[in-house]
């Protein structure tokens, strides 16, 4: 019998292009705040699940270990989750496994990223995410895969750059209300279209900013959660799914693997109609089109998200508030931390602590992240 699992506390650092702190210090700050948020101490925690993306960012191949000390994991089970960009939500999913299994009662989930280490630029590292024999010789950069997927998505639903640019306008605008955000801004569609083209159809303002930051959550079993807080947010469903590594053999127009992961989570949470039953959506938005691409799959209807965007339904006061946090495009994209920030946003939204970002009547939310070579989906459904 699986146990019910609640989020009882959350904390995060600023997301900034460069933080003059070590990863350990960033982790400590986020963890300290998450424990303060629910009145717990290190000693109350039974196990720690951490998440951080490629070791190459740090040039240090024991990267997982930097999270041990500052999360108080000495003398406790500690593990690191890594599924590329999906890591942040994946860590929350793995944290859920720990508590739902009944093995642990109070588990800390922490994700961090320090992307400002590589000097002078992180792109040479990103080249190494491509297959080394038939892809790397072509001299790829990270943006290629996004541009290729975006173009295919635009073709499938006859989408314009103008429409997709509205995601950047919305999310950067939402981020103005996020106290930790790196790039909250009031911009226009024209600003996005006039920003430099890097790999067409991707312009600079279609991309989330690289960032440093850390986020921590405290998870607890039902009986513990009731002792700790009056406002637990329940993780009611989780899902995880992978597609083939041979991405040139797939149709990139629809992330079916995201749909499958969402269906797992919905089934567990008893959700049959996500459009009717979910109040807050936090799909992964490292690039503008990705929000729509992922929302299509979370709703199970290819091509629906762009229509909702066009109607203004994805705004914070619309019928389907999407990325009310400001998302990766606005809050920033410290890879693993950015994913966990989305789960933290559900906690803040559903417990009524989202301040100026608060979506009214928010009881059910879904957060999702995506990663590896366009193939990983991680989904969490929460309910207050």
């Amino acid at each position: 019998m699986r146990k019910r699992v609640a989020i009882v506390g959350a904390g995060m650092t600023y997301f900034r292009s460069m933080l003059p702190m070590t990863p350990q210090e960033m982790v400590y700050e986020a963890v300290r705040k998450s424990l303060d948020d629910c009145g717990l101490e290190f000693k109350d925690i039974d196990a720690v699940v951490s998440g951080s993306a490629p070791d190459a960012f740090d040039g240090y191949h024991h990267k997982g270990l930097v999270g041990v000390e500052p999360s108080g994991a000495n003398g406790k089970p500690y593990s690191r989750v890594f599924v590329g960009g999906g890591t942040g939500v994946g860590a929350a999913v793995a944290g859920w496994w720990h508590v739902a299994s009944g093995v642990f009662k109070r588990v800390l989930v922490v994700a961090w990223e320090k992307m400002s280490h590589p000097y002078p630029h992180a792109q040479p590292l990103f080249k190494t995410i491509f297959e080394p024999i038939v892809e790397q010789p072509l001299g790829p950069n990270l943006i290629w895969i996004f541009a290729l997927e975006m173009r295919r998505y635009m073709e499938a639903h006859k989408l314009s750059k103008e429409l997709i640019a509205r995601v950047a306008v919305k999310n950067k605008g939402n981020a103005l209300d996020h106290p930790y955000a790196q790039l909250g801004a009031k911009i226009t569609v024209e600003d996005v279209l006039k920003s430099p083209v890097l790999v067409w159809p991707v312009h600079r303002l279609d991309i989330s900013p690289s960032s440093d930051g850390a986020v921590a959550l405290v998870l607890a079993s039902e009986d513990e959660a009731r002792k700790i807080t009056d406002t637990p947010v329940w993780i009611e469903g989780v899902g995880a799914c992978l597609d083939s590594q041979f991405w040139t053999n797939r149709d990139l127009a629809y992330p079916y693997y995201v749909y499958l992961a969402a269906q797992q989570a919905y089934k567990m949470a008893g959700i049959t109609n996500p459009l009717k039953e979910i109040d807050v959506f936090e799909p992964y938005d490292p690039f503008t089109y990705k929000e729509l691409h992922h929302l299509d799959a979370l709703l199970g209807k290819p091509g629906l998200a762009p229509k909702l965007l066009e109607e203004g339904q994805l705004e914070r006061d619309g019928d389907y508030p999407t990325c009310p946090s400001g998302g990766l495009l606005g809050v920033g994209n410290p890879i693993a931390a950015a994913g966990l920030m989305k789960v933290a946003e559900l906690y803040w939204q559903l417990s009524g602590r989202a301040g100026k970002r608060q979506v009214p009547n928010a009881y059910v939310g879904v957060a999702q992240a995506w990663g590896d070579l366009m193939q990983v989906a991680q989904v969490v459904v929460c309910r207050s």
Partner: protein
Amino acid sequence: MTRATPSRFSPNYLKQLPEDLAEYVRRHGLDKEFGRLDSWSSSMEKTYTEIEEWQIDNLIISYWHIECMYKHAAGFAVSRFLEGLKNGKILGTKCEGCGRVLIPPRIFCEWCFRDVDTWVEHPGTGVISTYSLSYIGTDPRVRFEKPIIVAVIWFDGTVKKANSSRTVLHSAGILHKVQGVDPEKVHVGMRVKPVWRRPEERVGSILDIEYFAPLEGDG
């Protein structure tokens, strides 16, 4: 254990921190706008190739670099594929279970989870499944005058829908570059063929195909 209530939560960043951390943050001006793009326009003005530098006085920074070299075994399937390229041939495997042609080739089918050992040769003609126009290379400090056209090529006659889903399909296909067409004129569905390097220049690499070019009458 104290019970937390929403009133405990403070939106004031410095109040959330232990005092010594708050002090550190104040000392380095992090409570202000450091590392935040001060306005959206600053991100517009900056070129992608600019390198951001640490701007804090008296901060100690250490530099280091790692040098690693690798040699990868291409494996049974891809070695034969590369050998084929050297001879001007595009080789793939074919799964007798689901009938899919697998390019890049593998020796197992991930749909049927069975051995695959039937080899087929493909003429290399296909369509552009998707493409992009890259103004930057692997080193983002280099910006191209004219973009390179990057595309996923799907080989003719290899598209197959999965039984399990209306939206999942398979096609034998590879990532490569397209030339011989104006970037403005490339389109999804454009028919292309491989352009090979001269036999004496081929080394058994994906680059033995120099690029893909539009078929006569398309482009």
